[in-house]
């Protein structure tokens, strides 16, 4: 408090003063009896408490001595003086402001405003100067004056601004289109549309199942491998295994007729350490050449793992610094076609990224910056090509070089057929030009190939559904610029089945596209660059349109630049399981870079729905396929994703007030945000191992046994060195497991392939578990009654009583008793007595025994969440936990709740073994926020 009078009293140096009168000569501060010379000794005093001299507040030792000489009787003079001095100090205290030193303290209360404290212009003018002087020290920084909006929106400046904003997260070519309509997220070094801002969940689903849904997948990374076929195969064979399905060497893929997909592992470590799923595409062979080209498409999240692995496998360690293609392209390009040298462009792009807003360009007249068509996951200086000296393999990183659109739905082929037209020929007599298409027209064999491809494309129109084609079919094509045939209004593309050439259609459906038709010039770097460079700009096209005699008619001679090589790749729909097969099949459209928007808008004008990342998740969920990276907990990318997701969910959880949060401890949910797969697998491995040893003949219940085991689990140290948890991808084992999961007596089930499966008994089980004890298996669970499974719902094993009750109609599922939250009271106590609680909780923990593994310092406890380390996850609840759900939702296709997730193989088999035949494969599902178990049917689909 400023300006408050200090107490008037004498310091307590009485003893000192008596023993040693140090203030002998100079008269002390008292001043009351000093005579008339000092007129008002009080006035100077109390204003400055920190000023020494005068009566000082507090009890200083060094102060003046105690003046004893106050007269015993009241005399008028001193009495009046003392009063007068006090009055004047009080007056000062009353008139001056106290507390904060703001000037507006002087204002009466009704004139004060909150904004005055930071804006002096709110003060009355007479006080402004003083306020300005006081506020001078903490003046805010002047904000940099930004350019006018007109200047900012000028084309060149806008591009510069766009380039600046892309420095961290690269934009796709359709970014601006998406940004106007989608919630954008920054992921994996890209800016991607997550979900549209308008409501379209069900329309999008309907589009996927009956018409067509379009997605921009250009963020997928393409890695090109070139080299001798046998050498490539030899290197790549280390990355995958035949046990997990067809590999890179599958004959139908190797010919280039089909796209394949495979899960890649670290070199030579097949069952453990997977990296993630990739799709791959071989370029069809050219006659008499063993040189092959292979594209591997991978998710950007796993590229950082995949690329070093590929380099190691292919021994490609030499980075080729100037990215000039060092290989002879098998299909000859006419040498007159001179592609724009690439290094220049990258250099220019680099310069653009370096300079912020300042214009340091030589040509100020032209467009100052080109849009960067680069990659988000690498820095601009790193090289994109690696060469091997030993086996001649070249790895080329083609990220962002190729635009990839995905069309999902049975009508995607009609959308494609309506949007694109096979390229029209041009006059052969034209002079040699720098464009690629006129040069091609001169070559008769190439034109024949083009005609054949066009024929196949025409047959495509006659198909009823995209799913009828063999999965993974590839078709190369050269098409006209689709902007030329842009309809004036949005029209819905519909199939036209009437033009029937039954024979050819059947041929296409059964055999797929003939091998030579899979060839496309998109494979060639030079053609790609040529096409990208010579694209007609939108402006130019509009000018040409305006010059047409009849407004709105088609440009009659198609401009020479408007021929684009594309590649159509069929995407298989639902392949697993029996119902809804080939749901969600579609086409992928591969384009050279720079042509993204030119194809996107015409596609949108054909009445397709657009989906974001959210929809691709739903797509794979309805397909029952694991979605990368959500459902790959054993891959490094999946682990990264899980951690990210955990922090996200935890943040969201903590944003709620503590009283409104779900108490997951009370719900018996140990891991609502992140599933401890490793712990689950280890625990089940232990249970099954001990179960095998102990039980020789007696058929006790798994649950009871597990409970008994798990109570003692805390004391038993795990002797085995912990091996990493993996997902079971061995086709044969999966097939066996799938057979075991089905009830053998139920009528509705088809008994295909079940005959081969050995009956489930203890012997088969132990042999299976020795191979896959630490594995998880991907399962689909459909709920029998109502209920909608959520993310991280628990998959549990029902007890025998539950299964008996299941026969009753009204029984919807057992209930979990509410758990007790031991931590809540601890947190409360901790708040009250911070020191005592630590020690007491320590002692109490020891006394409790079972809970001794709880942490002794719960400083980071969050109400309602189990702190690390978790207790046994399997036996925590009344029903034994087998696994967790990673994707769960109400399935619009099945009309009931469906969940996808992982369960421990050991746990699943132990449960199945103890279940009666008619109820085999019946499990329980429980949401993290609920106590109600729901019956669900397990399905393992191979």
């Amino acid at each position, binding site marked *: 408090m400023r300006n408050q009078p200090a107490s008037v009293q004498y310091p307590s140096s*009485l003893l000192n003063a008596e023993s040693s009168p140090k203030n002998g000569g100079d008269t002390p501060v008292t001043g009351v009896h000093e005579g008339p010379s000092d007129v008002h000794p009080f006035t100077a005093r109390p204003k400055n408490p920190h000023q020494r001299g005068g009566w000082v507040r507090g009890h200083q030792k060094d102060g003046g001595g105690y003046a004893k000489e106050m007269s*015993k009787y009241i005399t*008028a003079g001193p009495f*009046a003086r003392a009063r*007068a001095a006090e*009055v004047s100090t009080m007056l000062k205290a009353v*008139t*001056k402001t106290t507390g904060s030193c703001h000037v507006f303290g002087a204002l009466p209360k009704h004139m004060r405003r909150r904004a005055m404290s930071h804006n002096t212009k709110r003060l009355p003018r007479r006080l402004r100067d003083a306020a300005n002087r006081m506020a001078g020290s903490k003046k805010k920084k002047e904000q940099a004056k930004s350019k006018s909006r007109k200047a900012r929106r000028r084309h060149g400046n806008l591009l510069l601004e766009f380039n600046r904003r892309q420095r961290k997260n690269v934009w796709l070519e359709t970014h601006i289109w998406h940004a106007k309509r989608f919630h954008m997220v920054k992921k994996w070094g890209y800016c991607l549309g997550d979900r549209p801002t308008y409501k379209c969940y069900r329309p999008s689903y309907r589009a996927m199942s009956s018409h067509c849904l379009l997605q921009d997948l250009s963020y997928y990374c393409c890695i090109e491998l070139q080299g001798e076929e046998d050498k490539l195969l030899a290197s790549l064979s280390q990355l995958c295994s035949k046990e997990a399905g067809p590999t890179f060497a599958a004959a139908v893929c190797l010919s280039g007729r089909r796209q394949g997909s495979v899960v890649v592992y670290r070199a030579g470590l097949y069952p453990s350490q997977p990296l993630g799923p990739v799709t791959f595409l071989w370029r069809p062979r050219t006659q008499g050449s063993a040189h092959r080209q292979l594209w591997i498409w991978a998710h950007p999240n796993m590229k950082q793992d995949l690329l070093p692995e590929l380099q190691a496998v292919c021994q490609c360690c030499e980075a080729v610094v100037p990215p000039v293609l060092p290989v002879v392209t098998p299909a000859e390009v006419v040498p007159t076609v001179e592609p724009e040298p690439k290094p220049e462009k990258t250099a220019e792009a680099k310069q653009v990224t370096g300079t912020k807003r300042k214009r340091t360009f030589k040509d100020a007249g032209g467009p100052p910056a080109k849009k960067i068509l680069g990659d988000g996951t690498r820095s601009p200086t790193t090289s994109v090509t690696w060469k091997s000296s030993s086996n001649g393999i070249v790895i080329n990183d083609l990220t962002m070089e190729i635009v990839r659109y995905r069309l999902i739905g049975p009508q995607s082929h009609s959308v494609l057929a309506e949007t694109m037209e096979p390229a029209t020929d041009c006059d052969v007599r034209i002079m040699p030009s720098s464009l690629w298409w006129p040069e091609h027209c001169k070559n008769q064999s190439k034109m024949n190939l083009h005609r054949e491809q066009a024929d196949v494309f025409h047959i495509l129109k006659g198909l009823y559904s995209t799913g009828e084609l063999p999965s993974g079919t590839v078709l190369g094509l050269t098409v006209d610029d689709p902007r030329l045939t842009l309809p004036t209004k949005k029209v819905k593309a519909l199939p036209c089945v009437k033009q029937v050439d039954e024979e050819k259609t059947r041929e296409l459906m059964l055999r797929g596209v003939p091998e030579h038709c899979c060839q496309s010039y998109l494979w060639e770097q030079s053609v790609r660059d040529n096409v990208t460079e010579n694209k007609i700009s939108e402006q130019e096209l509009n000018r040409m349109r305006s010059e047409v005699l009849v407004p709105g008619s088609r440009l009659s001679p198609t401009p020479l630049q408007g021929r684009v090589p594309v590649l159509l790749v069929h995407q298989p729909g639902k392949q697993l399981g029996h119902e809804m097969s080939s749901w969600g099949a579609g086409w992928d459209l591969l384009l050279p870079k720079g042509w993204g928007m030119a194809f996107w808008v015409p596609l949108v004008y054909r009445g397709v729905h657009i989906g974001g990342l959210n929809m691709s998740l739903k797509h794979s969920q309805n397909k029952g396929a694991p979605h990368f990276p959500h459902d790959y907990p054993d891959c490094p990318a999946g682990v990264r994703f899980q951690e990210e997701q955990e922090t996200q969910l935890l943040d969201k959880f903590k944003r709620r007030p503590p009283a409104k949060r779900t108490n997951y401890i009370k719900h018996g949910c140990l891991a609502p945000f992140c599933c401890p797969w490793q712990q689950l697998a280890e625990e089940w491995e232990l249970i099954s191992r001990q179960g095998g040893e102990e039980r020789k003949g007696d058929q006790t219940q798994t649950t009871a046994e597990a409970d008994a085991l798990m109570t003692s689990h805390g004391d038993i140290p795990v002797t085995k060195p912990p091996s990493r948890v993996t997902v079971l991808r061995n086709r044969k084992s999966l097939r066996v497991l799938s057979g075991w999961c089905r009830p053998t007596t139920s009528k509705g089930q088809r008994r295909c392939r079940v005959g081969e499966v050995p009956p489930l008994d203890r012997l088969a089980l132990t042999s299976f578990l020795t191979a896959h004890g630490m594995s998880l298996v991907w399962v689909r669970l459909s709920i029998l009654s109502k209920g909608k499974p959520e993310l991280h719902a628990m998959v549990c094993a029902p007890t025998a009583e539950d299964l008996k009750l299941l026969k009753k109609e009204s029984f919807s599922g057992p209930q979990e008793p509410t758990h007790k939250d031991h931590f809540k009271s601890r947190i409360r106590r901790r708040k009250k007595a911070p020191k005592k609680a630590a020690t007491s909780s320590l002692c109490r923990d020891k006394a409790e025994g079972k809970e001794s593994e709880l942490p002794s310092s719960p400083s980071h406890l969050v109400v309602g969440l189990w702190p690390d380390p978790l207790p046994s996850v399997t036996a925590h609840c009344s029903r034994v936990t087998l696994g967790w759900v990673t994707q769960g939702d109400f399935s619009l296709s099945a009309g009931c709740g469906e969940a996808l997730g992982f369960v421990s193989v050991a746990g699943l088999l132990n449960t199945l073994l103890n279940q009666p035949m008619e109820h085999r494969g019946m499990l329980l599902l429980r949401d993290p926020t609920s106590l109600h178990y729901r019956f669900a049917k397990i399905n393992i689909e191979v």
Partner: protein
Amino acid sequence: MVRVKSRYLLCEVNVSDRSRLLLLDDRAVAATVKAAVARIHGDYGAALCSIRFSVKYLNAHTGIVFLRFPKKCYRLLWSALPFITCIETRGQKISCFLNCLHVGGTMRTCQKFLIRYNTQQLHRMLPKCKNEEEKQQVQKAILNCSLTGRNKEAFEVESESEEDEEEE
């Protein structure tokens, strides 16, 4: 707007032996009040007295004390003040009693009251003066009681200089 409310008691310490008034000390007064409250109201009172009770101002010359009590319980604490008979300070007992002159919601009202009270006292003294010297002294004191004229100017100059110092 929202604040912790207190009551400020403006008390006068009346002593029998005026020379011992100078021995007074804010700690001693606080301890005495606490002891008195504890004696009268027991532990409960002592506890109440330990929260936000303080001696805000003490003038050893005039014997004026400002006591701050929490508003919730100031009546209870106040009721213990008449039972104070002596203040023990620096090893000596000063027999005295506390006379409450004013109860205010803020320090400022107490100060205003004190100004009025003191000037009133001086004005009352003036006609009762016995000799001329006394009269002059009292008159001078009364003149000093206001912040007018030279006095005020000097004060303002001083405050200005102080502000300047603080700005640096």
